[in-house]
Every structure is written in C-alpha cells, then in structure tokens.
C-alpha cells in the first residue's frame, strides 16, 4: 500500500493564505499579513521537504487523487496530483525560492501601499504554480498554467495607478493568451487521438508509436502546438515581448515569477511531454532552433540595456532559450538542471538588483549608479556570486548546468553549440557590465535622491543604505545555493557523476526499445547530415573537457571585455556605439520588435475591430436592432396610447365596435 502524503496540502496551503490575506488583510497590521503569508508559504515548503525526505522510499510515479472532476464517457480528468522526480525538483524550487522571496518581500514591500494585496497575490501565485507542477493531467496543469498567468498579470500591474504598469500587465496577459491558444489546441488533439489528458495514460498510448520521420504528423503537430504554449509562458521568440515589460512589477515579483518559477513552466511542460517530443523530431528541432535564436537575440539586446532590471529580464529570456536548446536536443534533465540553478542565481540577481534599487531610492538606471561596492557590501557580495554563477565561471552553479547544455548541444549539432557559446560570452559580458556599472567607479546619481523621483517605489528615505536583514538573509541563502547548487550535477568528465541527471533519469527514461535515452535520443533529433558523421561517445572525456575549457574562456573573455569597456576605459563604449551607428540603434531599440508587432498585428487589429466589429457589427447591427425595435415600440404605443383617453363614450364606442365585429364574425361563421 502506498502511503498517503497529503500532496493536496502543498498547493492548498498558500491558497488559504491568499484567501485570508485577500479577504481580511485590509484590517490586519503589516506584521500579521507578513506572518500569515510566511506561515502558509513556509508550511508548503515544509510539506515539500517532508515529502522529499520520504521520496526515496516511494514507488514513483506516485499519484494521489483528491476528487473526480470531469467524467464524460471514457474521458476523465481528476483533481489528482502526480509526484515523480521531475515534479519533486520543481516543488523544491518553487516552494524553496518562493519562500525566500516571501521573506525578502516583507522588507522590500514594507513601505508600499497594498501590502496585504501583494502578499495575497503572491500566495495565490504559489497556489497556481504548485498546482501546475503537481497536476497529474494536462487539464489540471492548464488550470495552474492560466492561474499563474492571472497572478502574473495582477502582480505586474500591482502599481495599477501607473499607466505603464497597467499596460505591461495587459500585454503579458494578452501575449500569453496567444500561447495558451496553441496549448489548448494541443490538448484537444490529445483528447481526440489519445482519449485522455492524464500523463500516465498519454505516456502509455504514445510509447508504442514510432518516431515520426520525414515531416509532419500528429505528434509533430501536438509538439509544435505545445511549444507555442511554452513560448508564450516562457518568453521565447516570437512571444517573448511581454517579459521585459513585466519588469514594471515590484522586484520580488520579477524575481519569483519572471525569473525563477513561472517563466520556467514552459520548460517544465515540454519536459513533461518529452515522450511526445522524442517521437516528433521536427518539433524538437523547432524547439532547439527557437531556443538558440532566443538565447542569442535576447543576449544582444541585454548588452545595450541601461535599466538594471531590463538587463536581467533579457538575460532571463536568453537563459530560458538555453533551457529550450537543451529540450530541443533531447537533454531534458540538463534543461531542468539549468532551470534549477537559474532559479537560484537569477532569483538572487533580481533580489540583489532590488536591494540596489532600494539602496539608491528607486533609481533603476545603471548610468545613475556606480561605486556602490563599499556602501552596500552585502548586496555587492551576493550579487557578485550571482554574476559569476550566470556567467558560467566554475565552480558556481551556472557553470555546470550551462556547460552540460552546451555539451549536449554540441553532440546534436555544432551550430547550436557555437551560438550557445557566443551567447555565453555575451551573457558574461552584459552581466559584468552590469556589475561594473553598478558597483565600481564613482557614484553618478544625484547626491541625495529626492523623494519625489522615487514616488512609485516609495524607497526614498535618505542616502544610500544597505537593506535590512530581512532582505539580506534571503540574498545570502540564495548566494550559497548559487555557489553549491551546481555541485549535484558535476559531469563525469570533471570527476563527478552527474547525480542530478541520474536522479531525473526515471522520469526521462524512454520506455520504447529503439529509442535510447541520452545522446541516442539527441542524435535522432539532430538535423540529418550534421550529426551523423561525428558520433560522440557519451563520456567523451577529452572533448568534453576541451569544450568546458572553451566555454570557461568565453566567460572570461566576456569578463575581460566588460572590464575593459566599463572599468578601465569608460568612454570606449560610447565610441564603439557611435561607430556601429544604425546597428547599435536597432539593438538599443530592441530590434524594433515591439514596433513591428504594433504595425503588423496590433494596429491592423485595432483598426479592423473599430471598423468592422465596433462600427460595423456592434453599432450598425446589434445596437441598431435594439434601438430600432425600441423606437418602433415607442411609436406604436404612442399611437395606441391615445385610445385610453378617459372619455367614457369613446370607450363605449370601442366596445360597441368590437361587439359588432364579433357579431359579424359569428354571422359569417354561421352562414359559411
């Protein structure tokens, strides 16, 4: 008999917190609100930890059904929770990082209005995110999927009196809706052809199928549509545009939702559907290409941004691109590994950036910072750890996960690897650019930032100052995780045993003979002709070490360039920018993608809607029908109204006329 782990507690606990704070929080003191929010998110974390400790004794996958939800014919979808290695990792990341960010928010949001609203939303987000990762079927997952979108919308538009924030919230919601459309169609196809949305049943029915070769089939269609959904949620080309704008939200939100957890939902979903993708090589190739392009594209934009949060946002898009490269070459455990380390170091970077913003009274422009190293030492050191981790410098966490992705990408095709490597260089460059601009040199901001400038953030209280302990502690914990988080996945070539990959093995093990897990699967998805002539052994020790060396040197080159341009010779970037001219302007303006979308989709849609839907259908058909029938009724009754004059003899006349008519009728009937 399998033990009852009460998995339902994990998502429901934050929901309780959200409901209490959301409904009654207005009357509570800040301590009560923060206490409640921390209690419930911490309790969820505690439950996850207890589950994790009992995990090794469990028969996986472990399913717990709470209640029947939909039962129609042979189709069934339950409120059921599915625990395997993959969802356990996700649970630990979501609740662990989520709890830390809750703690941080107590300090960061302390002087904001709507304290209770913020924590209610944050707990609500946790509820939906945990539903997403624990769901045992695609439909329940979709509930969580939509729910995190809702929470994201609410939190991006948290300062809803600010126009840009409200617009950013809407943008995120609408762009996500496009992706969700693809996801939904994929679900319909699954129901139609496999009769179920349950992970286990779908796996059972998909496993016997052979990989689709030579173009498009059902599984390719499902895979591509799922990828559309993932691209929406995880900010990949062409749907990435919402994520940079989402930085309008409070910084802890950016850290939790738009870096550590929600945006990785697409990676989780693709990994969860790995059986489908492994049998649809075309779809996998598309995933890899989208990931590669996104990684490069976002990294180049990140190089030119001056807003500290925007740099991190583009960096997030770029890192998500890495995860999709990994998915696309069939290295799902590498994707999840990077997802986890990315949650640590990007969460850390965002929180540290928030701490910097807090320190300089709401200023987000890096050109107005500088020399903060000595003034906010805790923030500086933790941010340093995060920067080294994302840049991929050993032995920090990002090094191991990024290196594994690059290695697996190289096995699939050197093109992915080369672009990934160049992106790694750019990543290192723009992160150290951020680091040098913020912490080194001389302070370039106003001596004492005036409170008015920081109005929406409300952080204006005096000069540059270190954040309170409640904010520093999560930074330190995440910094420790960013250092050590990668050690669980040290590859064999560096003397480790990639325990993380082995841990996730049971989830990603392919059940079909002829479809090997690991590089075998990867080589099958590679474009023909690129991979076949150079079969790599899985533990190609020497070449893997060589590649590692190359990627580390790329990171160091990035560091060197940043040092040269932003520390040694701060005037040089300006000269290079003017030398590059049009190209530089295009990158600064994010390749005009927003403008392009506006011209291609938004404006025609608004114009068409105004002309056809609004003026044409709404005004001329719907409104006109209603108005005209009302006018008609008005006119008819206006003429009939005069019958009721109060004049007795006219009434008598009507009665007599009526009676006469009846008599005539009866005579007519009688004589017919």
């Amino acid at each position, binding site marked *: 008999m399998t033990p009852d782990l009460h998995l339902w507690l994990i998502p429901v606990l934050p929901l309780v917190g959200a409901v209490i704070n959301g409904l009654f929080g207005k009357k509570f003191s800040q301590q009560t609100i923060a206490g409640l929010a921390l209690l419930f998110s911490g309790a969820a974390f505690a439950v996850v930890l207890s589950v994790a400790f009992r995990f090794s004794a469990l028969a996986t996958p472990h399913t717990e059904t709470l209640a029947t939800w939909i039962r129609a014919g042979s189709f069934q979808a339950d409120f059921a929770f599915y625990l395997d290695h993959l969802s356990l990792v996700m649970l630990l990341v979501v609740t662990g990082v989520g709890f830390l960010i809750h703690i941080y928010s107590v300090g960061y949001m302390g002087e904001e209005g709507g304290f209770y609203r913020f924590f209610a939303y944050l707990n609500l987000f946790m509820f939906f995110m945990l539903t997403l990762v624990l769901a045992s079927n695609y439909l329940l997952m979709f509930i969580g999927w939509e729910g995190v979108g809702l929470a994201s919308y609410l939190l991006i538009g948290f300062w809803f009196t600010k126009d840009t924030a409200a617009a950013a919230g809407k943008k995120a919601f609408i762009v996500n809706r496009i992706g969700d459309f693809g996801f939904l169609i994929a679900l319909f196809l699954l129901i139609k052809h496999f009769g179920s949305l349950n992970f286990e049943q779908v796996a059972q029915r998909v496993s016997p199928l052979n990989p689709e070769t030579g173009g498009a089939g059902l599984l390719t269609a499902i895979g591509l549509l799922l990828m559309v959904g993932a691209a929406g949620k995880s900010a990949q080309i062409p749907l990435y545009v919402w994520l940079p704008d989402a930085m309008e939200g409070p910084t802890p939100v950016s850290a939790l939702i738009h870096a550590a957890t929600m945006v990785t939902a697409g990676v989780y979903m693709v990994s969860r559907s790995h059986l489908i993708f492994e049998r649809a090589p075309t779809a996998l190739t598309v995933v890899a290409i989208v990931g590669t392009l996104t990684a490069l594209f976002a990294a180049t934009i990140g190089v030119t941004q001056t807003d500290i949060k925007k740099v991190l946002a583009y960096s997030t898009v770029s890192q998500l691109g890495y995860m999709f490269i990994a998915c696309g070459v069939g290295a799902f455990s590498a994707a999840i590994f990077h997802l986890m380390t990315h949650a640590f170091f990007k969460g850390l970077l965002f929180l540290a950036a928030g701490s910097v913003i807090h320190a300089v009274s709401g200023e987000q422009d890096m050109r107005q910072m500088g020399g903060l190293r000595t003034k906010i030492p805790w923030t500086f050191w933790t941010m340093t750890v995060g920067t080294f981790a994302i840049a991929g410098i050993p032995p920090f966490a990002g090094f191991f996960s990024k290196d594994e992705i690059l290695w697996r990408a190289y096995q699939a095709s050197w093109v992915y690897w080369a672009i990934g490597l160049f992106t790694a260089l750019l990543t290192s460059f723009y992160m150290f650019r951020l680091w040098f601009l913020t912490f080194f040199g001389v302070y370039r901001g106003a001596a004492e930032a005036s409170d008015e400038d920081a109005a929406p953030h409300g952080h204006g209280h005096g000069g540059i100052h270190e954040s309170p302990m409640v904010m520093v502690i999560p930074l330190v914990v995440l910094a420790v995780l960013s250092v050590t988080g990668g050690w669980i996945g040290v590859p064999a070539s560096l003397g480790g045993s990639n325990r993380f990959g082995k841990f996730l093995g049971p989830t990603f093990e392919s059940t079909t003979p002829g479809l090997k897990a690991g590089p075998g699967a990867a080589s099958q998805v590679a474009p023909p002709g690129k991979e076949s002539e150079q079969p790599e052994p899985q533990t190609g020790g020497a070449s893997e070490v060589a590649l590692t060396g190359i990627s580390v040197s790329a990171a160091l080159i990035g560091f060197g360039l940043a040092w040269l341009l932003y520390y040694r010779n701060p005037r040089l970037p300006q000269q290079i920018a003017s030398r590059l001219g049009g190209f530089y302007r295009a990158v600064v303006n994010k390749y005009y993608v927003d403008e392009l979308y506006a011209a291609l989709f938004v404006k025609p849609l608004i114009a068409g809607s105004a002309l056809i839907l609004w003026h044409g259908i709404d005004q001329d058909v719907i409104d006109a029908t209603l108005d005209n029938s009302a006018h008609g009724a008005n006119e008819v009754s206006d003429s009939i109204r005069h019958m009721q*004059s109060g004049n*007795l003899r006219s009434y*008598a006349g009507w009665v*007599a006329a009526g009676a006469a008519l009846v008599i005539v009728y009866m005579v007519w009937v009688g004589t017919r």
Partner: protein
Amino acid sequence: MVPISYYLILSGILFACGVTGFLIKRNIISIFMSIELMLNGVNLSFVAFAAQWHALSGQVFVFFVMVVAAAEAAVGLAIIISVYRTRETLNVDQVDLLKL
C-alpha cells in the same frame, strides 16, 4: 299567435336604441337609462324564446337580470351622486380623469 320574429325584431330595436343612446348622450343619467333599455331588450328576447320553447329557464334568467339590474341601479346611482358631488357636472365628456 304573434310569430317570434316580431319579438326578436322589437328586442333588437330596443337594444339598438339603448346602444345609440349610450353612445350619443352626454348626461350620465341618460346613459344609465340607455343601459336599462339594452337590458330590457335582452330580457324581451329571453321571454320570447321561453314562450316559444315552453322552457322556464328563460324566464328565470329574466328574473336574475332584473335583480342584478336593480342592484346595479342602486350602486350606479350612488356613484352618480358621488360624481356630481365632487365634480359638479354630469357630463361624461368632462369626467375623464380617474383622479382629481
């Protein structure tokens, strides 16, 4: 024996007189009297048919009509008095408001 058609024609004439009086008279009392004329026109056709078919039910109907007409006259006259007290007129063309 007078044929029944004579009675019915007379009854029709009486009823038509009543209707005409009701429509063209302005005085409430005259209208009231026109109603009585219509009732009696109907009564006449009832008794005529009763005599024709040797059935008593027609005569019983007439008694009922008379009783109801008497009651109606009592109530109607009371209303007329009340109307005259409040409006000081018996011209129906001037009595066209339910509420003063």
